[in-house]
């Protein structure tokens, strides 16, 4: 029997994002969703499921690639602004503010 791997996504409540719940093997997509119901919803964990053949998922990075920029760009992250506060004080920024 030929089997394929399917990825299962579940929604925990109304409006919640679909989250990866796990994966399973099944012979057909039809059987995959039926098995997913038993495997992932027996204890009413999810109110809705998506079942996707793993082959249907496009993945990154492609071979040899690395995700993310080559040079660090920490200044773009929220944490970067904390460093900015220190510099602002050091250079007397507070005196520029009209209290």
């Amino acid at each position, binding site marked *: *029997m030929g*089997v394929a791997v399917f990825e299962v996504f579940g929604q925990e409540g109304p409006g919640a994002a679909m989250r990866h719940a796990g994966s*399973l*093997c*099944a*012979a*057909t997509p*039809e*059987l995959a969703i*039926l*098995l997913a*119901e*038993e*495997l992932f919803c*027996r204890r009413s964990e999810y109110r809705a499921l998506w079942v996707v053949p793993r082959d249907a998922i496009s993945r990154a990075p492609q071979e040899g690639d690395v995700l993310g920029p080559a040079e660090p760009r920490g200044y773009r992250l929220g944490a970067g602004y904390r460093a900015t506060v220190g510099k602002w004080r050091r250079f007397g920024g507070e005196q520029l503010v009209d209290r």
Partner: protein
Amino acid sequence: MIGKGLGLGQRAALREYILTLADDELVLGHRDSEWCAFAPLIEEDVAFASIAQDEMAHAALLYGLLEEDEAERDALAFGRDGRGMRSAVLLERPNGDWAYSLVRHHVYDIADDLRTGDLLESKEPLLRAAAERMRREERYHLAHGRSWLSVLAAGGACSRERLERAVDAVAADSYDLLRPLAWEGALVAAGALPRAPSRLWDRFVERVGAEVCAPLGLAFHPPTHAPRGREGEHSAAMDDLLRTMSEVYRSDPRAVW
């Protein structure tokens, strides 16, 4: 309690009928549970064991219509010997291969679908409510069976040969499921059923033919002599099954769980 306001004869008939329904579910549920850890895929282990639990739960629901007391209910499920069991012989047969177990379950589900469909028209509110609850799960069971049958049908020569053998073996025992029984008329007179269960036979043969056999290019011609499980005539496999199933219960029938 069920059957309030009915005469003694009608009440006895109703009890017999509910026992046939409950015993069918209990015995098939037990056989299905034997697949746990042996199904073709671990995913199916979980799914089929869960279906087995559904059938067991349906049996418990139905025994509960006959006995309010839990100990009495257990005695009904686990305390009878083969002569007292009202299930169809088809359901006690050893599991054989996956094709047999699957075809048996699906063919039984079709009979059960017809039976519980009629129960929706019962004048007994408790029986009607039980049927509604059971049918909610039976939709899944039917979809599961259909899906697996199409997988096995596409599985090559060996798979095909096993399916054919399974259909023949199941057909040979099928009549027991809906054989006319002496107390059927009383059930209809009592309003518990819109028609005698045996009147569903033609529809059953037609549906198994169309839903199970036709996609395989097979025909369904079940003989109408078959065994008489409903009258307590069971095979040796039933004794084995009861010994295993009730082993814990019999070790101390008065134990509280």
